[in-house]
């Protein structure tokens, strides 16, 4: 004797099995995105296209330029002969950074006066600009040290600047000793991909039955909305868990992200996250009569969920009102959980508030969906 839930599940799995492209659609986009984001999502700035205008043409100015080229961070794309050329390069986007070494640079340097060096940066991407400027000041500082070492022996080593105090700051990052931003992003990508895929799958699966008319046929049967919803979501729950496992393993083996946490906590966290994501998908489906509506709603929701999750932009830096919104975002909690489990290896009680939040969001969304669902034909 099959229970009604049993026949629902069997039907879902037969349909999934019969859909030849299902496996392809479920797995390939995930892997493609994991690889694309895995390589693309980075804060590191390299290959800064740079234009140089050397008005001094001295040994010192050439030494400074070679300091820049030696790092490998700056690509000298153009050597300008006047200011206008620099303006043109920056306007056209040929160069992001311009270094102008003014006349009397070497002379002033030798005399201990201010040596005129100008750096212009394209601030369109403020993040890249800031990081590039950081590199510039490091290189200039290094150049200064080298020049000083050059000059000092000549000007009597005895007077070794008694007032100068040298501080050496030693920093020690925890959990991600190499400060690799890939370690930061890969776990986040797992959460984001699961959110996008499972919300879409769930919403579309239910709305499709509504559109085709099979939903009505099911609703006139004695099946309860609880049985129907369970039958509809359990397969996606299992698919979601398999997805988490698959992309975590690729993240660990291919991208070399360490996993130091407890796998069972990961299973618990993923299950709670999937609960809330399935709830979200179902809720979306109860607001959509057609797949087109579901698509529009999905589109409307997913970007805010992504941006207001802490995936890339720190929640603490957001305006207060947007911070409140993030409390309704299951991805916010899962990102905390998955990053903590990958990199920190914290225990259950540390993550308990996030677990609880996902559980509440999930059960809340499911309860509302079920209530709306039983009246959905009215």
């Amino acid at each position, binding site marked *: 004797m099959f229970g009604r839930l049993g*026949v629902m599940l069997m039907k879902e799995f037969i349909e999934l099995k*019969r859909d030849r492209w299902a496996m392809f659609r479920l797995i390939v986009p995930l892997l493609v995105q994991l690889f694309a984001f895995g390589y693309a999502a980075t804060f590191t700035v390299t290959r800064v296209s740079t234009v140089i205008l050397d008005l001094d043409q001295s040994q010192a100015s050439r030494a400074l330029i070679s300091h820049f080229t030696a790092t490998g961070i700056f690509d000298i794309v153009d050597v300008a002969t006047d200011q206008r050329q620099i303006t043109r390069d920056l306007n056209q986007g040929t160069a992001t950074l311009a270094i102008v070494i003014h006349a009397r640079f070497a002379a002033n340097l030798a005399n201990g006066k201010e040596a005129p060096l100008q750096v212009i940066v394209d601030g369109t991407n403020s993040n890249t600009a800031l990081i590039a400027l950081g590199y510039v000041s490091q290189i200039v500082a290094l150049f200064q040290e080298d020049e000083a070492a050059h000059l000092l022996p000549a000007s009597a080593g005895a007077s070794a600047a008694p007032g100068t105090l040298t501080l050496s700051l030693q920093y020690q990052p925890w959990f991600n000793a190499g400060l690799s931003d890939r370690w930061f992003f890969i776990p986040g990508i797992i959460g984001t991909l699961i959110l996008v895929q499972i919300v879409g799958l769930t919403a579309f699966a239910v709305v499709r039955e509504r559109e085709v008319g099979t939903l009505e046929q099911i609703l*006139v*049967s*004695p099946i309860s909305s609880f049985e129907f919803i369970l039958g509809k979501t359990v397969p996606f729950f299992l698919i979601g868990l398999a997805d988490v496992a698959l992309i975590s393993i690729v993240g660990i083996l291919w991208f070399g992200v360490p996993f130091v946490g407890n796998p069972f906590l990961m299973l618990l966290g993923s299950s709670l996250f999937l609960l809330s994501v399935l709830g979200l998908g179902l809720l979306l489906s109860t607001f959509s009569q057609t797949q087109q509506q579901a698509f529009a709603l999905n589109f409307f929701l997913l970007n805010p969920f992504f941006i207001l999750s802490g995936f890339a932009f720190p929640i603490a830096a957001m305006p207060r009102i947007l911070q409140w919104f993030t409390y309704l975002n299951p991805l916010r909690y899962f990102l905390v959980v998955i990053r903590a489990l990958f990199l920190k290896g914290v225990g259950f009680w540390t993550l308990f508030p996030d677990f609880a939040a996902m559980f509440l969001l999930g059960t809340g969304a499911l309860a509302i969906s079920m209530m709306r669902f039983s009246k959905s034909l009215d």
Partner: protein
Amino acid sequence: MSAAPPSVLTEGLTKIFGRFTAVDHIDLSIATGEVMGFIGPNGAGKSTTIRMLCGLLRPSAGRAVVAGFDVARKPEAVRAHIGYMSQKFSLYGDLTVRENLRFFGGLYSVRQSEMAERMRFAITMAGLEGRENALVNTLAGGWKQRLALGCAILHRPPVLFLDEPTSGVEPEARRRFWDLIHDLAAGGVTILVSTHYMDEAEYCNRVALIDRGRLAAIGTPSELRGHALGGALFELACSPLGAALAALHRAPGVIEANVFGDRLHVLLADASAAASLHTLLAAANVRAEAPRPIAPSLEDAFVRLVTRTRRPEAAS
């Protein structure tokens, strides 16, 4: 027979969507084993009524009892005792014939021990022997329709609601489908079937005409044909038609006279008045043959019924 309670009973059944009254105080009583036809223009409220009877929609007013259960209070019990075929074909196209049957049998908790026999029955009934493992998507319209009926009766429901089950199916398959309906009714199943094919109304024991959410008329097809017109219909070959029409409109006992091709259709309050028509027309210088009694089609009756029920509304 008259002592048995009706299988389907509605009293003042009403459904209001916002400011639109889709179903307006419908009273129906369908006896066990009866085939009741539901006829009416699109948007008349047929589907809405059927959906209320299935427990898919909550009535705004009035009540409905199906197979002994109140649809508003005991929708779950109603669902276990009815079969339903919706307007849209709604089986799973990516499942085979057998898988669909097993799925719907499972939803209705058909016992495993009876499942094989019921499935065999449904497959035979639909004429799908040898195609049990075919994907439903690959079947032609008529087979799909019969399979849908098979799925709807797997749990042997005493009441069956069929919402335009034959729309989009070729005539041959439609006839076969109606044979199945009559077989089921002979076995004691009560059937409410909506259709917009007038010829199908003739296959029903009784017909309910729905117009603008109201029950415009109800009766056997022959009752509707006869009584609905409120008189006897005659065909009259005569000329000139204009003068004849004018004379007839003035004559007492003539309810209505209309041009039908090169002849007139004359509706008389009393059939015996036909004999006097000849003298009447002769007086108006009209040459006429003897009036010939004709049987009105159901379509005639419906057109007339609908115009009659709408008229007071137009006057107000």
